[in-house]
């Protein structure tokens, strides 16, 4: 139609979009006329659409308005270059902005080994936490000297029949395209760890490590939590001595390859007394049926 032909495609698409939005309101407070004589142009655009669709001038039923709006959408879509959704979603994934239920979740073998028979339930908890977190934190991709890269942390509280057994699930994973490689998954029980001052997932991880930590030395410093380290832990497991009974410590971390400096660093390194943690799971764990929260399945495609 001639009103649109005088406008550049982006402006015409914008006008069509504003017109489609305006069909459902007399006046939305954020609606603006951005081009000269826009109110009259919108009226002509709508009249033209009604003619093309065979919808009477006085038909303001919802279904009719939706048909007109859809028709305007199609016109607007033809004016703009078609977006490539995969490229756009890849950008979101790279930044950590992808809706988290779209990640393909892969749990590394170390987590499965540590959890043993508990793995099936923990896997569902991990997936639910990633797909429907209550808090999340993302690092990368811009590699800052003082920050990890491409790492995402997700947190979700799970309720049980017994409030003292409620826990917070903390999941940390590495983003790689649409994949999220889960390296760490810990239950944090507020009944035994004071989480009041932890205002981010990384703070929670630190609190967790404070409770279950097994001392290691990294970069010449002793500790059980290292946000970033210039070197990699030498081992993944070690036996804690002296203890009354042998206890195993698990060192979990993310490998950070700095290609420009040609060095490999580590981040979010935690050294955890695995036996003490598993004892807590044994003591406070509940059966699936005693959990009050629904687990979240992977979204079905095509809605």
């Amino acid at each position: 139609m001639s009103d649109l032909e005088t406008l550049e495609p982006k402006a015409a698409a914008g006008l069509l979009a504003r017109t489609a939005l305006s069909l459902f309101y007399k006046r939305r407070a954020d609606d603006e006329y951005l081009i000269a004589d826009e109110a009259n142009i919108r009226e002509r655009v709508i009249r033209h659409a009604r003619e093309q669709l065979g919808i009477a001038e006085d038909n303001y039923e919802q279904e009719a308005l939706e048909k007109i709006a859809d028709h305007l959408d199609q016109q607007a879509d033809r004016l703009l270059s078609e977006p490539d959704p995969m490229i756009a979603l890849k950008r979101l994934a790279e930044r950590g902005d992808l809706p988290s239920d779209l990640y393909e979740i892969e749990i590394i073998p170390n987590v499965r080994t540590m959890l043993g028979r508990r793995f099936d339930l923990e896997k569902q908890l991990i997936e639910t936490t990633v797909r429907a977190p209550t808090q999340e934190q993302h690092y990368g991709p811009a590699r800052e000297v003082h920050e990890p890269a491409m790492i995402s942390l997700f947190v979700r509280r799970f309720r049980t029949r017994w409030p003292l057994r409620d826990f917070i699930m903390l999941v940390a994973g590495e983003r790689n395209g649409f994949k999220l490689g889960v390296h760490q998954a810990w239950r944090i029980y507020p009944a035994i760890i004071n989480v009041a001052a932890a205002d981010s997932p990384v703070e929670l991880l630190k609190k967790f490590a404070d409770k279950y930590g097994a001392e290691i030395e990294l970069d010449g410093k002793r500790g059980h939590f290292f946000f970033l380290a210039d070197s990699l832990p030498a081992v993944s497991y070690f036996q804690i001595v002296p203890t009354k009974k042998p206890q195993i410590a698990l060192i979990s971390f993310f490998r950070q390859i700095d290609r420009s400096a040609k060095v490999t660093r580590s981040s979010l390194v935690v050294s955890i007394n695995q036996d003490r943690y598993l004892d807590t799971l044994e003591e406070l764990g509940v059966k699936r049926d005693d959990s009050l929260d629904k687990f979240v399945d992977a979204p079905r495609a095509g809605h």
Partner: protein
Amino acid sequence: MCLVKGGMGIVAGPVLYSANPWFAMEVANKYRKGTFFAWVCEYFDSSATAAVSAGSFIAPSSNPRKIYEDLLYEYYAQEEHSRVIKAHKKTFRRLAKKWLADGELTKDQHDEIVASVGAPSWRIWKPVLYVIPRVGIDPSRIIKVPRADRAGYGPEYQIVDLKAHEFDVVDLTALVRNI
């Protein structure tokens, strides 16, 4: 303050409520420099207000609690034919074009919004409730919705430039009924 006009008790509520999909918040935070649009109501649950209250004249389709519950139900059920979610998708696509045309978005950002609503994510449709204390918001920013755009006589408002620090976001998943 309590005024009585035309037989309807009108109390300026100290708090405003607005139910929205999580994605609306995401878009405002990531693409609109933290500027939120909110269609607000002085009553969280207008169906539970007294018969003489202005809230009782708010249509169910504008009741924040009902909007929240309906969206939560469809989010949980992963209702693929959800009219509400389909309508939200169309609205976000139109808004993306509008913002692209007025220079608020780049083409890449436009494409990201369009790709997000087109992807099979359910998470983005989970409802959140904005709880907005009236104190600190200039009354001129709280725009009364014209009668023609309200489904009932009860008062509804719009705020087009709400900032993140002006409200709290509440997840009522654990509290709402019948889900």
